[in-house]
């Protein structure tokens, strides 16, 4: 696969749940190996956008391409196993241990048991939880923040090149949030993953992003590097949404 092939591409995508278009003739290119954050008011279509990448939602018209291949032509099960996904509601399986939860995608792919144990250990370390202490616990024995970290580890388990994250750090305390943000940036530098990251936290969005996409009512209001957005906000809405005080700080 060529390096210049975009990780994800939306071409003239329209999505309608039955009461008007959520997205309309939507175009977007997400370059490979970058962290792209998607921000925008609640209900603007962020989750919808994310779920169209792994075919949890099908568009009414237009096409979505993943690494150059139109997703509608791919087997959805295969496609999803090769894309990491952290859902907004965490969604850990309550009847499975942390280890079983983390290793679920590799298990679906038929990887060997022995490799899984090792992999789980590495991932738990990566997200800052002691493997000895946590691997055989059940999700209800973890705090909300710890559960959310497991959700992230689970998405990384099969080493996908693209990871979709829907507000993955929303339940974390500020300290572990910052820690995980750093880990994510480090991870991305080390293994060049494409991370599509939805968040409500503007600080977070600006901090981790190579590219920020600001949505409103299904339209891209502005996209660019965090510096681009702060230096040249496209409209008052951008200024307002990012927070006026940020611009004061920035211009000083």
């Amino acid at each position: 696969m060529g390096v210049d092939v975009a990780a994800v591409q939306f071409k003239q995508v329209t999505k309608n749940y039955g009461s008007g278009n959520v997205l309309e003739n939507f175009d977007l290119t997400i370059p490979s190996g970058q962290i792209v954050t998607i921000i925008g008011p609640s209900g603007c279509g962020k989750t919808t956008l994310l779920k169209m990448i792994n075919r949890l939602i099908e568009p009414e018209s237009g096409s979505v391409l993943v690494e150059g291949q139109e997703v509608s032509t791919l087997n959805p099960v295969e496609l999803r196993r090769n894309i990491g996904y952290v859902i907004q509601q965490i969604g850990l399986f309550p009847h499975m241990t942390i280890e079983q939860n983390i290793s679920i995608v590799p298990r679906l792919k038929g990887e060997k048991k022995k490799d899984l144990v090792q992999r789980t250990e590495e991932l738990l370390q990566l997200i800052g939880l002691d493997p000895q202490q946590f691997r055989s616990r059940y999700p209800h024995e973890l705090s909300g923040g710890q559960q959310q970290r497991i959700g992230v580890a689970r998405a990384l388990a099969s080493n996908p090149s693209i990871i979709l994250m829907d507000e993955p750090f929303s339940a974390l305390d500020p300290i572990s949030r910052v820690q995980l943000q750093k880990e994510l940036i480090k991870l991305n530098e080390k293994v060049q993953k494409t991370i599509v990251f939805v968040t409500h936290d503007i600080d977070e969005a600006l901090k981790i992003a190579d590219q920020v996409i600001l949505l409103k009512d299904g339209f891209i209001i502005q996209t660019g590097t965090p510096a681009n957005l702060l230096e040249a906000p496209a409209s008052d809405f951008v200024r307002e949404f990012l927070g006026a005080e940020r611009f004061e700080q920035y211009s000083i």
Partner: protein
Amino acid sequence: MDQFWNTLQADWPMILQKMGEHINLSLISVLIACLIAVPTGIILTAYKRVANTVITTVSVIQTIPSLALFGFMIPFLGIGTKPAIIALTLYALLPILQNTYVGIGGVNQALIEAGTGMGMTRWQILWMVQLPIARSVIMAGVRLVAVQTISMATIATYIAAGGLGDIITRGIAMINTVTIMEGAIPVSLLVIVVNLLLLGLNKLLTPKGLRQYTRN
């Protein structure tokens, strides 16, 4: 009391034989009911619009007095084991169907979405997520049905299907309390033992991660 023990000793082989028939009737009926009601309950969760109609229809069976239901079998199937099993099975359908429907349908949507998003097939979601989480609810239905079927199988004697009911009706005909007890006590014991067995099995099968939800 002495008389009771003497009679019991004499009747023991016969009691064992009737108990065997009784277990046979009940077990087969409950198994068939499971084989019908569990898949149906699962399928209905995908067709919520018809689910209510189906469940209401099945629940009508429950309103027929059991003795009458056994009677209704005679014109179609005659007498014997087969019609008795069918009547018992019909009675057993509703609780299993209802619990399967509620249990599978009640699995948190976020879990199903997480599973789908990670690339589980629908079968894998059913086997790896929905069934394990719903299992104890379904098993509660099966336990209820097992208890109900064992006690109802006593009536099967009226259509010559055998079982411990044979002993009880003979005791009634002879107005002999000892004989009645020789039929009734094994039925009660069976109910208690089966109930405890299924309770224990459910506890054993429930993963630690789900126990907090299934206390009581």
